[in-house]
C-alpha cells in the first residue's frame, strides 16, 4: 500500500510529512501538488523526514505527499552513454525540451528512451540454466561500445524458456523469459537498481594494471590502478577540474562516468561541447561515445547533489558488470559532503567537526569502497573494474579539514594540489613531495613488461633529483644558489628541467595534452641521461656554465610539446644532438685550456 500523507513543515530542501506510517526508509515520494521528487531520510512515528530534489519555493503545509513504494533507483539499459543526467537520472536534454533553457520543477522524464530500437543478438539458448548477471545478449550501444544485456543481479536465475531471435527491438520488448520453480520471469533490455545499494559481484581482485591517463606526473610518478581509488584535493584554481577532465578524456578505460557535483554549469557544458569532437587515440572514435555525465551544478537543488554521487557510481558498476574498465570522476566530493551537512543540519542532528554529520566518514568509505576490480556475476566469465577519482575542495585550501582528512583514509592515490605551484603556473600543480601512490609496486610489473625494464629505476633516479632539490632549496633560501658547489647547482638545474619538461603538462596544448607511456619513459630517460653525462663532465673538471648554455636544454624541455606522440622516434635525434653537444664541451674546453 502506498503511503499518503500531508506536509506539516517546510524549510528549504527539507520537508516533514505526517501520516506516513507505511512509507519505507529511502523510499522516493512525490511531494506537493506539483509532485516534486523527494526521498525519505528519517522516520519518526508517522512523520517522514524528506529531502526534496527540486526547489521547494512555494511549497505549503497541507499539500499531499505520496509514496512510490520504490527506493531511489536508476534505470539501467542501452541509451545511457552519451547522455547528460541530473543527480537523479533525469536527462537534461528532455528537461530542456519541456522547460527550455532554465530548469523548472515538477518535470518527469524517462532516463532512457524505451521506444528506441536496438539490434539485439541473443547469447542464450532455450533450456539453458542461467544465473543472475549472465549475459542474455548484446547490442551496439555506440560504435565504441557493445552493451551486454544482463540478467538483473537480484534475480534468482532459472531456466531459459524463451529467447528472442536476432533482430531490432525496443526496450519494452520481452527478449527472454526464464522460469524458476514454476514462476516465469519476463526479461527486457533494461532493469532498475537502487542507487544506494552496491551491485554485487563474484569475487574481488587486487588492482595491478595501471590506468594510463597520458598525464606524466600521474602515470610516471603517482600512478593509479584500474579498480583503484584516488583523491585530488586542492584550493580553488589549483587544477582539480582540469585534471579530472584530462582523466575523463584520455584514460584507457572503456567507459567514463563524469559526475559534476555542485560545480560550475559551464564546466559541464565544456565537456558536452568538447567530447563529441575529441577523438579517442585508441579507437579513433569521438570520446562522447564512451562517456556519461551526471550533472548537478552548484545552483541546482542541493539534495539532488547528494544523490548524484550514487546515481553515478551505480551506472559505473553496471558497465563494470559487462566486463569493462570504467573510470568514475567526481567533482567535487566536498560539495556532496556539504549537501550531507546541510540536510543533517535541517534534521537537527548532532554535528561533529565543522558541522559535518558524524557519519561523514562512513559515507565516504562506502562510496570509495564501490571502486574495485571484480569478477562479474554470471557467465561468461568476465572481469571489470570501477576506478574512482574524487576531487576534494578543502575550505581555505586547508588539508586538515574533515572531508580531506577522512577521504585520505579511504583512498590509495593522493594527488596533493599546491596553491603555490598554481600561482607560479606550474600545472598540473600536483605537489611531488606530498603526493603518493599506493599502487606503485603493483603497476611496475605492467610497465616493465609493456614499456621498458628500466621504468622503475628511471622513475626513481629522476624522482631522487627532485627530492635532493627539495633539501637544497632550504640552503639556497638562506645563502643563495651561488653558495652551492657545482654538483649541487647541477641538481637544481636538473630539477628545473624535470619540473618544466616532465611534471608540467599543458592540458590545452594539442600535443602536450596527452603523453603516451612510451614518450613518458623516453623523456624521463633523456633527462636522467643528461644528468649523468653532465655529472661526468663536472667530474672531469668542466664548468657548469658550459653545461648550462647547451642549446639542447630548451629543446629537451620543449620536446613534450614540440614532438608529438606519433613521432616519438624523433627523441632519438634529440639524444644524438645531446651526445654531440656533450662531446663538443669536452673538446672545446681543452682548446680553451690550450689558449690559457
Amino acid at each position: 500500500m502506498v503511503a499518503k500523507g500531508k506536509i506539516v513543515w517546510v524549510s528549504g530542501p527539507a520537508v516533514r510529512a505526517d501520516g506516513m506510517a507505511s512509507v519505507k526508509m529511502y523510499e522516493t515520494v512525490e511531494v506537493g501538488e506539483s509532485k516534486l521528487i523527494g526521498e525519505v531520510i528519517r522516520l519518526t512515528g508517522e512523520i517522514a523526514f524528506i529531502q526534496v530534489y527540486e526547489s521547494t519555493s512555494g511549497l505549503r503545509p497541507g499539500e499531499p505527499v505520496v509514496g512510490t513504494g520504490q527506493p531511489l533507483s536508476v534505470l539501467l539499459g542501452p541509451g545511457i552513454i552519451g547522455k547528460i543526467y541530473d543527480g537523479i537520472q533525469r536527462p537534461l536534454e528532455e528537461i530542456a525540451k519541456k522547460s527550455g533553457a532554465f530548469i523548472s520543477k515538477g518535470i518527469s522524464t524517462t532516463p532512457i528512451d524505451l521506444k528506441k530500437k536496438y539490434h539485439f543478438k541473443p547469447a542464450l539458448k532455450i533450456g539453458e540454466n542461467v544465473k543472475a548477471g549472465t549475459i542474455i545478449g548484446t547490442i551496439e550501444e555506440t560504435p565504441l561500445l557493445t552493451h551486454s544485456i544482463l540478467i538483473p543481479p537480484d534475480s534468482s536465475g532459472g531456466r531459459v524458456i524463451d529467447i528472442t531471435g536476432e533482430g531490432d527491438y525496443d526496450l519494452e520488448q520481452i527478449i527472454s523469459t526464464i522460469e524458476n520453480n514454476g514462476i516465469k520471469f519476463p526479461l527486457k533490455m533494461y532493469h532498475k537498481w537502487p542507487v544506494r545499494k552496491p551491485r554485487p559481484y563474484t569475487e574481488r581482485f587486487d588492482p595491478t594494471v595501471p590506468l594510463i591517463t597520458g598525464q606524466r606526473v600521474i602515470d610516471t610518478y603517482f600512478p593509479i590502478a584500474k579498480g583503484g581509488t584516488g583523491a585530488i584535493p586542492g584550493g580553488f584554481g589549483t587544477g582539480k577540474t582540469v585534471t579530472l577532465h584530462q582523466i575523463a578524456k584520455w584514460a584507457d578505460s572503456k567507459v567514463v562516468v563524469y559526475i559534476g557535483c555542485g560545480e560550475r554549469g559551464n564546466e559541464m557544458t565544456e565537456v558536452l561541447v568538447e567530447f563529441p569532437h575529441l577523438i579517442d587515440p585508441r579507437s579513433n572514435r569521438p570520446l562522447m561515445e564512451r562517456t556519461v555525465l551526471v550533472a548537478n551544478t552548484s545552483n541546482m537543488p542541493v539534495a539532488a547533489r547528494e544523490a548524484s554521487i550514487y546515481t553515478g557510481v551505480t551506472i559505473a558498476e553496471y558497465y563494470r558488470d559487462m566486463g569493462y574498465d570504467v573510470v568514475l570522476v567526481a567533482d567535487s566530493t566536498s560539495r556532496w559532503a556539504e549537501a550531507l551537512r546541510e540536510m543533517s543540519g535541517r534534521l537537527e542532528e548532532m554535528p561533529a567537526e565543522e558541522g559535518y554529520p558524524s557519519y561523514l566518514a562512513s559515507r565516504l568509505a562506502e562510496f570509495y569502497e564501490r571502486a574495485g576490480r571484480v569478477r562479474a556475476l554470471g557467465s561468461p566469465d568476465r572481469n571489470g573494474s570501477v576506478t574512482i577519482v574524487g576531487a576534494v575542495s578543502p575550505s581555505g585550501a586547508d588539508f586538515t579539514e574533515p572531508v580531506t582528512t577522512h577521504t585520505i583514509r579511504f583512498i590509495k592515490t593522493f594527488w596533493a594540489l599546491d596553491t603555490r605551484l598554481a600561482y607560479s603556473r606550474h600545472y598540473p600543480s600536483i605537489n611531488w613531495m606530498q603526493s603518493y601512490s599506493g599502487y606503485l609496486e603493483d603497476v611496475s610489473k605492467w610497465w616493465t613488461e609493456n614499456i621498458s625494464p628500466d621504468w622503475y629505476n628511471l622513475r626513481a633516479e629522476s624522482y631522487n633529483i627532485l627530492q635532493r632539490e627539495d633539501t637544497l632549496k632550504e640552503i639556497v633560501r638562506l645563502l643563495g644558489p651561488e653558495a652551492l658547489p657545482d654538483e649541487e647547482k647541477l641538481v637544481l638545474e636538473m630539477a628545473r628541467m624535470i619540473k618544466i619538461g616532465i611534471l608540467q603538462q599543458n592540458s590545452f596544448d594539442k600535443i602536450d595534452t596527452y603523453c603516451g607511456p612510451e614518450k613518458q619513459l623516453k623523456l624521463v630517460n633523456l633527462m636522467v641521461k643528461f644528468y649523468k653525462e653532465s655529472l661526468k663532465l663536472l667530474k672531469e673538471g668542466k664548468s657548469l656554465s658550459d653545461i648550462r648554455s647547451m642549446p639542447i636544454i630548451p629543446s629537451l624541455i620543449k620536446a613534450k610539446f614540440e614532438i608529438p606522440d606519433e613521432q616519438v622516434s624523433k627523441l632519438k635525434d634529440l639524444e644524438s644532438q645531446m651526445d654531440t653537444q656533450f662531446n663538443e664541451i669536452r673538446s672545446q674546453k681543452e682548446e680553451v685550456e690550450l689558449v690559457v
Partner: protein
Amino acid sequence: MLSDFSSSSSVEYTKVAEIKGPIIVVDGITKASFDELVEIETSEGERRLGRVLEVGYGKAIVQIFEGTSGLAITGTKAKFLGKTMVMPVSNELLGRVFDGLGRPNDGLPEPIADKFLDVNGEPMNPERREYPTSFIQTGVSVIDGMLTLVRGQKLPIFSGSGLPHNILAAQIARQANVVGTNEDFAVVFAAIGVQYSEAQYFKRSLEDSGALRRSVLFLNLADDPAIERIITPRVALTVAEYLAFDLGMHVLAILTDMTNYCEALREISAAREEVPGRKGYPGYLYTDLANNYERAGRIKGRNGSVTQVPILSMPADDITHPIADLTGYITEGQIVLSRELFRKGVYPPVNVLMSLSRLMKDGVGEGKTRGDHMEVGNQLYDAYSRSQEVRALADIVGRAGLTGVDLKYLDVGDKFETYYLKQSVDENRNLEETLTRAWDILANLPKGELTKIKDKNIEQYYKEGSKHPTQ
C-alpha cells in the same frame, strides 16, 4: 513590485510570537508557503517586506528586509501575499535607478512591466548553455593579456578596503562596452551596502561615457537596511537575465560588495541559531553564493549574454576567508588586487600570480585573437613568478649571491610592473599593443628561457634585447 498586491490569495495574520534580530515568528498560520512574500504593517501603519524561511506546525519564520527595529509583538500585521518575490521587467528599466529591493528610487514612476519574474531565477540547464568563447577587450593590458575576460564569464575582483576596485570595475565597464558601436549592450550595477560616494563614482563614470542610459542601477547603500542586501543581487541578476536572454543584449553585471551580502546572510543564520560553518557563516553559504554567481553565461540560440564582475573585499586581505574562498570555488577565476603594488603606486594593482581567468584559454588564440596570445601570457606568468622568487632571495643574500640569469629575471619583474601592468585610468590599450609590450618585456630574457612558447612563435616575434623599455 510592491504595487502588485492585487492577488486575492493573500491572508493576514496578527499573532506575532517572537521578534529576534531580523526575523519574526508568526503564529496561528493556516496557509503559508515556503519562500512566500509577506507584507508587514506596523502599528503606526508603516509597511515592510518579508519572506518566509520556514513554515510548519502553525508557525512561520519570516525574515524582514527592512529589519525589525520598531516592530512590536502586538499591533503588527503580517499579510502573506500568496506568491514569491517578483521583479517587473521591461526595456523601460534602462536608464533607471532602483533601491535594493527593486523599487524605483529616482523619483520616476514604476516602469510598465512586460512581465514579472521570480527574483530567485531558475538554474540554467547546462545542456542549453552556450560555452563562452568571445574575447572582450577591456583595454587593460593585464586583463586582456593574462586574465582575458570572455562574454558570459563570471570574473570577480578580490579586493581590500581602500584598494581601487571600483575604479578598475568602472574602467572595465567603460572600455569593454565601446559606446557608439552597434553592439547592443547594457550595464547592470548593484550596490550592496557600499557608501554613497562609491555608488556615485560609478554612476558618474557611466554618465561620462554616455552609458548611463543603457544602465540599470540598484542601490542598497551602507545606511540602507542590511537584510535587503539578500535581495539586491537577485533583483539585479533577474533584470540582467531578462535584458540578455529576452532582449538579446550583452549585459555586464557589476555587484559590489558581496562581502556585505554575505554578512547579511550570516545575520539571518545567527538569528535562526543554525549550526555555523566557518567563521560563523552558514554552511549553505556556498550554495547561496552559487545561486547568484551561476546566473551568468550564454544560452544556445540566443544573442545576449550576462557577464558578471562581482567585487568583494577580503576581510584582513585574507584570500582564505570563507567569502573569498567560496567565491573563488564558484566563479571562473578571480582578479586579486595587491596592497603592496597599490602602495608602490602601480595601477591597476593586480597581483597576477594569485589571479586567474579560467576561460582565457577558450577566448584567445588563432582565429580569435592571436596565435601567440596564450603562450606569451604563460611565459609572462612564469617570468614574473621567477622574478618574485629572485626578489625574495635578493633581499636575503644580496645581488651578489644571484646568478646571471637571476639578475635578468629581477630586471624583467620590475619592467613588468612599470611597463606592462601599470597604465592610467583612462588608458585604453588595444590587444596589439598589449602583446607588443609583452614581447618587449620578454626580449630581456635569453631565448632559451622561453620554455612556454613554441619555436615558431619565438621565431616570429622574439627579438632578443630589441627593446629596453623603461616606462
